[in-house]
């Protein structure tokens, strides 16, 4: 028995080490990982909707010298409306506000829409809410994409902006 003790001690230490090594690479299927997704993810600088007027002489005089900007503007970055339809059914209709505490940072969209495995017809529209009175220059006011996506188990169909930032595109795995 005494002779067996070191062998047993080594055997048990080895089993413990093997258990640790096995648990270090335990096969796992993360929850919800099989649900295919249509993912919307993009970011736009946003359309500035502001009204500006020059400051009066009195206003300028009332300001400290370093605060005397020639004009004063009110307004900010426009909100957007996001509409998504999948297979003809409207799935999302939301107002998306610019980010940042003062709502003056870029506007982003980041949504995961679970869908069934297979082919789906997807329509996405992302439109700035700009009152007609405002001049917005050449910035695009609306982005849209329409087409078929095919997603298998565990796959994501990504709708995002193209590298030049002027149109939505679809990326498949």
């Amino acid at each position: 028995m005494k002779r067996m003790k070191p062998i047993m001690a080594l055997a048990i230490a080895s089993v413990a080490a093997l258990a640790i090594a096995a648990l270090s690479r335990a096969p796992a299927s993360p929850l919800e990982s099989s649900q295919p997704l249509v993912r919307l993810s993009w970011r736009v600088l946003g359309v500035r909707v502001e009204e500006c007027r020059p400051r009066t002489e009195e206003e300028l005089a009332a300001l400290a010298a370093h605060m005397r900007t020639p004009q004063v503007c009110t307004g900010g970055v426009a909100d957007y409306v996001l509409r998504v339809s999948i297979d003809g059914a409207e799935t999302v209709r939301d107002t998306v506000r610019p980010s940042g505490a003062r709502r003056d940072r870029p506007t982003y969209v980041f949504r995961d829409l679970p869908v069934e495995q297979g082919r789906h017809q997807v329509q996405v529209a992302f439109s700035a809410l700009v009152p007609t009175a405002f001049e917005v220059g050449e910035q695009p006011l609306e982005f849209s994409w329409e087409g078929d996506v095919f997603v298998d188990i565990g796959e994501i169909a990504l709708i995002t902006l193209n590298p030049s930032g002027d149109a939505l595109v679809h990326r498949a795995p």
Partner: protein
Amino acid sequence: MTAAVRAVQRRGRGLLARADAWCNALYTWRYNPLYHSGTVVVASFLILTVTGLYLILFYRIGAPYESVARITDQTFAGQWIRTLHRYVSDVAIVAIVVHAFRMFVQDRAWGPRSLAWVSGVFLTVAFLVCGWTGYVMVWDVQGQLLATEGARLMDLFPIFSEPIGRTFVGERDIPSAFFFLNLFAHIAIPVGIALLLWVHLSRLARTHLLPPKPLFWGVTGLFTLLSVAWPLAMEPEADALRLPTDVALDVFYGFWLPFTQPLPVGWAWVLMLSAFAAALSVPLLTRPRPEQAPEPSYVNPRFCTGCEQCYHDCPYEAIDMVLRDDGRDGYVGLVDPAKCVSCGICSGSCAPMGVGPRHRTGRDQLEDVLSFISRVGPSRDRVVLVGCANSAACRSGGPALDAEVFPVSCVGALHTSVVEYLVRAGAGGVMVVTCPPRDCWNREGVMWFEQRAFHQREAELKDRVDRRRLRVVYAAEMESGVLARELASFRSDLANLGAASAEKSIEIDTLCATPEVPVAETADA
């Protein structure tokens, strides 16, 4: 609530005691890995640092997956070093859990030990976060899983103007800056771990940072061999447009995923913060009621000669030496109640018996032993077991072993005069039964007692005591078999010595040369 916690502690303590006894039988108390769980964590940290330094030489933030794949392809070094880095990081978590469990069930997490507990909780979190960054560095499917779930959790807080999660959606390549930050965190967190470790150990004297060499090299060798024999393979690369389906998950660092993933992010945070708060509140939940809490030690300045022995022996650095203010020259011991865990080791260190927790000073122990002798009256052929509260002697009980038991809170608190008194009163033999030294709840009790009994450490056992009638035995709570064997052997040795002689009038030295204070005057102390 407290009753439930106590019940959990009792059950856990029974479980741990069985596991300890089992490991003692296999590995001996000297190398029982359960006793060395804290030092195994530090040893793991060292191995992680060394292996990590090698891995960082080859890691590229511009091509994380490819660079790790290249490391894994290095058959002679990179492959097993990376595997060892991973296995040892898992060993660290296992050792942390064992260490925390031991401290919890042994009720060693409240009062002055709260700092060690709380810093230990933060150390655990730091290890887990460091491991998280390590897995993200590889940028395989497991890294992707941990990164996306981590980002989902972080995105609850409006730290950035845009969600961190958008980094991983495949809109564009993940910037190198992300992997640089991750690498920075993976290196910076261990620096924080080292600082936290310093806080964790700050209230301990003479800390043991590493396990005994055979255990250290045994664990290192075993996992090195395993790393060579069963190395890690590369998992599939992270793909932003595919959800990780089958992942080889490291349970020790990804155990939280099944709990947080199904929950909305707010509830996931509630769950995690609740677990964190529960861990932090252990010192509050386990502290005894004020009327039940053991009192800290007290130095009676009348007896204190300023010898500094209690100052040296205190395992928690709770005693300082300060200038006397009673007209005598020199220093006097002063106990800091905020650091004193009431272990009583100072009681055993003080030759004139002027220090210790109330009712447990050397003088109190002498009164106890007088009462014990008058009650039990040990005969000349019988053995008295002086048992530490956590040893087999107190658990097995005297009748089962056909011996009288004189219980003490810790043998480190036992004044050698008690042993002297028992031997001179005619006990056939005195067997001091302790928990194994590495499991001493007061860290150094066994070591100090042995030095006092056999190596002339103050307050030493006097030369006039026949050492052949004294034996020290390590028998943990569940090792009654060990105790029975040792007792039989001791009895056999005592039989060869013949009957003990009992002195009629026993004088015990209770004063050193300096103070001339009658013992009776100190009754109010």
